């Protein structure tokens, strides 16, 4: 568990990460701000206080692993990886540019710290399950975390993986659901409803917990819970807000799935975030 002071510091770090996300995507002229901003607090707390990885040795065999299955949220991951020293912050503005290691969706072997190629939705949980099985075979206690989007779990492969993880009782596997309620064609509840989401996962053999995905202390507590091995895989359902931290995005959830802000919009959003940094 992180201390109150640590979480206070992290809160400021994550405001800066939000600024990085907006500036990266604006510079790229394309990308997915809404789902990056909904996921940033989850990824931030995970890397700061739970994921056992050394940024200077990101390929150590017995490391914990993080698979960003909702690959379109990768600006959030790049922001966290840069902040933690996996690579130079100077790379951030190269997102999506020709020749950049910061590809539009995660690619193994480009930016340090990327564990799996994702972006074709629905595949990451299977890969994470395989990694957790590998750790179990090698008898080390590495954990594998997999962050999924809410729309993403409409993919059938997710449920194949959920069923297999339940059968194999892989308690080194932790799923995190970024439940931001919106996808490209509309609200998740309209496009293809996923509720009752906890009951579904429980029926597949998972332990679940539901939290406010922007309450850093609640995220920290849920991740601490997920580390306790109880003979079953665990899922943290995180209720989040698409575009969290940018008022004009929060008010139009669906619009900001895959649209880059204009330079003016970015400036306005960044100024509001900077004001929060200054006010603390």
């Amino acid at each position, binding site marked *: 568990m992180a201390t109150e002071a640590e979480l206070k510091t992290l809160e400021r770090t994550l405001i800066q990460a939000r600024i990085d996300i907006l500036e990266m995507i604006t510079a790229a002229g394309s990308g997915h701000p809404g789902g990056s901003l909904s996921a940033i607090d989850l990824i931030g707390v995970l890397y700061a206080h739970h994921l056992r990885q050394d940024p200077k040795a990101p390929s150590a*065999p017995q490391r914990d*692993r993080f698979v960003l299955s909702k690959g379109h949220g990768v600006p959030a991951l790049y922001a966290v990886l840069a902040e933690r020293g996996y690579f130079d912050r100077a790379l951030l503005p190269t997102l999506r540019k020709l020749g950049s290691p910061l590809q539009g969706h995660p*690619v*193994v*072997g480009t930016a340090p710290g990327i*564990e*799996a*190629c*994702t*972006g*074709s939705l629905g*595949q990451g*949980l*299977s*890969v*994470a*399950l*395989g*990694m*957790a*099985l*590998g*750790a179990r*075979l*090698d008898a080390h206690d590495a954990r*594998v975390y997999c962050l999924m989007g809410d729309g993403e779990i409409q993919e*059938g*492969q997710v449920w*194949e*993986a959920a*069923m*297999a993880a339940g*059968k*194999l009782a892989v308690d080194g596997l932790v799923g995190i659901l970024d439940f931001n309620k919106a996808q490209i064609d509309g609200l998740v509840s309209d496009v293809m409803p996923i509720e009752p989401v906890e009951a579904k996962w429980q029926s597949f053999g998972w332990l679940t917990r539901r939290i406010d995905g922007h309450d850093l202390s609640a995220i920290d507590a849920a991740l601490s819970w997920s580390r306790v091995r109880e003979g079953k895989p665990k899922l943290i359902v995180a209720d989040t807000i698409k575009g969290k931290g940018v008022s004009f995005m929060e008010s139009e959830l669906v619009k900001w799935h895959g649209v880059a802000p204009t330079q003016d919009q970015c400036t306005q959003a960044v100024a509001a975030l900077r004001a929060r940094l200054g006010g603390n």
Partner: protein
Amino acid sequence: MQKPKASRQAFGEALAELGAVHPEIVVLDADLAKSTKSELFMKKFPERFFEMGIAEQNMVGVAAGLGLAGKNAFCCSFACFVAGRFETIKISVAYSGANVKIVGTHAGVGIGPDGYSQMGLEDLALMRTLPGMQVYQPADELETRQIVAHLAANPGAAYLRLTRQELAPLHGEGYRFTPGKLDVLAEGKDVAIFATGGPTMHAVTARAELAKAGIDAAVVNVPSIKPFDDAGTQAWAAKVPLIVTVEDHNVLGGLGGAVAEAVSAGHGSKARVVRHGIPDVFGESGEPDELYAKFKLDGAGIAAVVREALGR
């Protein structure tokens, strides 16, 4: 002397033996372990075998995760069902560079009476288009064993295509499989028959029939579809007037495609390329030998295709 053996059987036996030498090998199957013969590994190494149920795309993804976590994951099902999970193979396996060996058995019309829905007839074409994906198809037991040993010892993503039906031995004990190289079974100057997998033994039979008609046919076995021996193929195209490719696969995109691509890119070619296989139609039910006769993949059929192409 070896006896005829299905390449899936040879695979299962070899993998079970190699499991003792390579502790990093793990095996996954999707409710077809008895058919793919991965059960032979399961019986010896149950803790390294994962029964994934009838859920092939998850199996492929889990294999990728195991591969990325330091294992060498053999992922088995019918060619039809496993290659059908193309997008998962594309992203989780090939793009991630995961150490995964995808094994597709019961390839082609050779599966027989189950019919088209169980026939992998497009898997070579699919797998060839993935950067870095190796694609191998053995023609007999000895070659199968050597390819499996190669896959056990070398990391990376690969596709192995195997038969349900028995294959006659074509190689002596001295044979050594080499990735990216053609395997010349018999020399000849009038035509070169390039064959892969199940029909290769029938190409050898066809050669004898053609000899009776005064036609001197070379038989070239192609176990390595990717990497493909472009230079070796171009050399054949420069010395014979006709290359006939023979495969139990759609004529689009498989061995015939690889040969046509290589020949068209080469200098000094004098060979016409005739691609023979399943002529872009759906398969159907029937006994394997009946289907090989219908699609002219048996000895008589291949000989007839060659004679028609030569006009003699």
